[in-house]
């Protein structure tokens, strides 16, 4: 438990430190959310209705942006070998690294959501629902992303490959996250079903992703 906390804290520290890595995700989120209304046109009713979906897509893309460095840097500087040898199953190392990465990239997105949502004219109940779905759903994005990051690290690639691998897998999270957020304002009774599926998706990825990512990292040790 202590070892996991140490790894999580270091991952978060490095993400925040190395060239403002986590900050880049936040700026990207901001960019996506502010640009979409220009494309959609000055229809406030429409924008406030699709606002939760815009926030979700922005969060998804911003999360993908930071995945490159999740294992890539550890592999490049040799510390991945030492983490594999640490007295902690590699699966838990992956969990700890995901927790650290989420603290540095996912949590700031959740915190920024109310501000950006207000910018889009999203109603307060829908705004709260969007922030809540992102709080529950972004860990799943990071965890699923870790699978792609581990595979790309094992192959010695990075960048776009990760996004291509991960994006299809994150679609269920996006569907249920965005629909729960949208349901909150349109028909409050329809919120709980997609929201609970979102919770389930996060829990499933918390189990499956570390095992898969650890297997990919082991296979890539060379």
């Amino acid at each position, binding site marked *: 438990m*202590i070892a996991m906390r140490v790894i999580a804290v270091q991952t978060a520290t490095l993400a925040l430190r190395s060239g403002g890595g986590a900050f880049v995700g936040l700026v990207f989120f901001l960019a996506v959310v502010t640009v979409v209304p220009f494309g959609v046109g000055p229809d406030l009713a429409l924008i406030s209705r699709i606002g939760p979906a815009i926030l979700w897509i922005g969060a998804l893309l911003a999360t993908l942006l930071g995945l490159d460095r999740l294992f890539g840097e550890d592999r*490049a500087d040799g510390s991945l*070998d030492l983490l594999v040898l640490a007295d902690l199953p590699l699966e838990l190392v992956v969990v700890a690294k995901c927790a650290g990465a989420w603290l540095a990239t996912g949590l700031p997105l959740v915190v920024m959501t109310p501000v950006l949502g207000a910018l889009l004219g999203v109603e307060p109940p829908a705004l709260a629902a969007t922030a809540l779905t992102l709080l529950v759903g972004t860990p799943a994005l990071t965890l699923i992303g870790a699978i792609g990051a581990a595979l790309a690290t094992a192959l010695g690639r990075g960048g776009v490959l990760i996004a291509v691998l991960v994006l299809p897998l994150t679609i269920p999270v996006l569907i249920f996250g965005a629909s729960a957020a949208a349901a909150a304002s349109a028909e409050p009774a329809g919120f709980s079903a997609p929201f609970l599926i979102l919770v389930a998706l996060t829990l499933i990825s918390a189990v499956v992703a570390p095992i898969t990512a650890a297997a990919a990292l082991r296979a890539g040790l060379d």
Partner: protein
Amino acid sequence: MPDDQDRDDTGAGASRPIRLTASDLSAVRGGRRVLAGLSFTVATGELLAVTGPNGAGKSTLLRLIAGLLRPVGGQISFAPASEERIGGRLHYLGHLDGLKVTLSVRQNLQFWADLWSSPGTVDKALEALGLTRLATFPVAVLSAGQRRRTALARLLLIRRPLWLLDEPATGVDKAAEAMLGEMLRAHLGAGGLAVVATHLDPPVKPAATLALGAE
């Protein structure tokens, strides 16, 4: 580190003789057979030097022993048998230093000390490698030799019976080489084992030399 030789919390003490045995070891990397039918034994207090030209399989052998690679044939055993994973009983120093360039020397070492739950050893390790003055500098501004010293300091953060060192003296100056020799002598004197891959003269006279030839 003469003053912490009385610590015997990781089984490195002479009271429990330990032995690393490899028999008929074969390894393949990238479809090419790099090691074939290799057997050796390293006992308590011994240093095995692994020599050979580039590509002879020195690094592969160290990674096999560490369990980072699987052999295609043969066995490696580390006696006495233990429940503990092999990773918890060895220090592996690869050709990469495993340092985060944005963190300071001290932060880098502190991370591993915390991870290995070995508090309070960072200062001593810094001092042993002559890094005290550099402790607060980010690794990014250090020279290659100073980075190697920092990586070597990691070996002193926690006592582990087996050291696997891959070209440990790459880039370091005469003084650091002497420190490495002293570290190794103290480690072996306390009952530790070491396998050192090098194409230079090893810093301590080896008990045996394993010469690998490139195919």
